[in-house]
């Protein structure tokens, strides 16, 4: 269960939408058109358990998401889910990683303050003693070209 976003956390004018999140029910999303540029050279790293619940984040995750570490640990990774991302992308992600394979894609992530940031995300299953023990997600700076392609493509996938 994810809490609804709160108006007092949002910076700037926002729109409101309710997202239906897989296995988590609905969440009220407040989002703005303010982009935070991806910082050069950094990697955003997080790990989750097999259910997608966050167990580790690095400093870049905290800086880019706008959440404090204690606010995200124990929360579903879909806390970053932006309404502009087509559900098909996340279905593909889960279908891929639960079959033990690596997934890669361009993702628009939602910040706590309602803004967004684009990433090139790679998710891999953490295989320990032959079993999937969780997932590691690593995000890096996407090129402007692939972001432009995604901006055009994603609205067609709803």
């Amino acid at each position, binding site marked *: 269960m994810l809490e609804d976003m709160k108006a007092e956390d949002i910076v700037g004018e926002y729109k409101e939408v309710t997202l239906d999140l897989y296995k988590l029910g609905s969440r009220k999303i407040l989002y703005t058109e303010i982009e935070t540029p991806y910082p050069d050279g950094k990697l955003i790293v997080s790990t989750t358990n097999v259910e997608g619940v966050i167990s580790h984040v*690095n400093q870049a995750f905290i800086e880019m998401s706008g959440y404090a570490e204690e606010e995200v640990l124990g929360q579903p990774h879909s806390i970053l889910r932006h309404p502009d991302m087509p559900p098909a992308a996340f279905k593909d992600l889960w279908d891929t990683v639960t079959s033990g394979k690596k997934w890669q894609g361009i993702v628009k992530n939602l910040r706590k303050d309602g803004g967004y940031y684009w990433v090139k995300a790679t998710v891999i299953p*953490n295989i320990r003693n032959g079993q999937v023990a969780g997932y590691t997600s690593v995000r890096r700076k996407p090129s402007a070209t692939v972001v432009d392609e995604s901006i055009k493509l994603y609205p067609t996938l709803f």
Partner: protein
Amino acid sequence: MSYMFTVSPDFSPDRLSGWYIFNTWMQRQMGVDIHLELYDDFCAQRVATYSNKIDLIYANPFDAAMLVREKGFLPMVKPEGLLDEAVIAVSAESSISTMDDLTAKLKVAMTEDPDVNMIGMMLLESADLNDDNIEKSIFDSYILVAKSLLRGNDDVGVFLAGSYDDLSNMVKKQLRILLTSEIGEIHHSFLIGPKFADRREEIQNLLIGMNENEKGQGVLESLGFKSWEKVDDEEMEFMIDLMDTLSV
């Protein structure tokens, strides 16, 4: 019984004697013969490790991943505070001033250092550059990468950050850093092979306690390290998973 020990070929030439001093220290502490075999390049070292010739290795992250996942090596320690980061640099006189100035057909100078090249290519990727649209020149050392930039033969160079720092001030004055990675999770590691796995904890404890006496501190200093820190299995597995995400 004797051990075969090797060190990732990306160490600074200034540290060569340090590794021999360290090897002597290890032999005295462990009471066994250890032969230090240093290879000229990454390929020759990899052939030796694939042939099961190596028992102890101070490995770069790329080789550590292979040794742990495929050859049953176990992590012991890492040098405190030393991370593997990559630097993208240009000649100080270059017209390239930011990553946004990089375009296809870029001439890139690099060594064969596998993890540094992987990080370097990741940094270039954000400028839409990849193996298909750049021209790579491979050199045996970072000083040769620097020289290629200074001669104007290549546009950008990919360096291990620590090795860039080790360049002389005269060389560094003629170069300019465009970007340094800030990954913060990737490091060299000291590994032990499966044949000697039963001595892992003993050697691990010896290394961790090295900075507690004057002699050990002196040896560490000759390697440029402050101390060794323990690396457990999960930390190593996490780093390998992370490297795996960067390889695509």
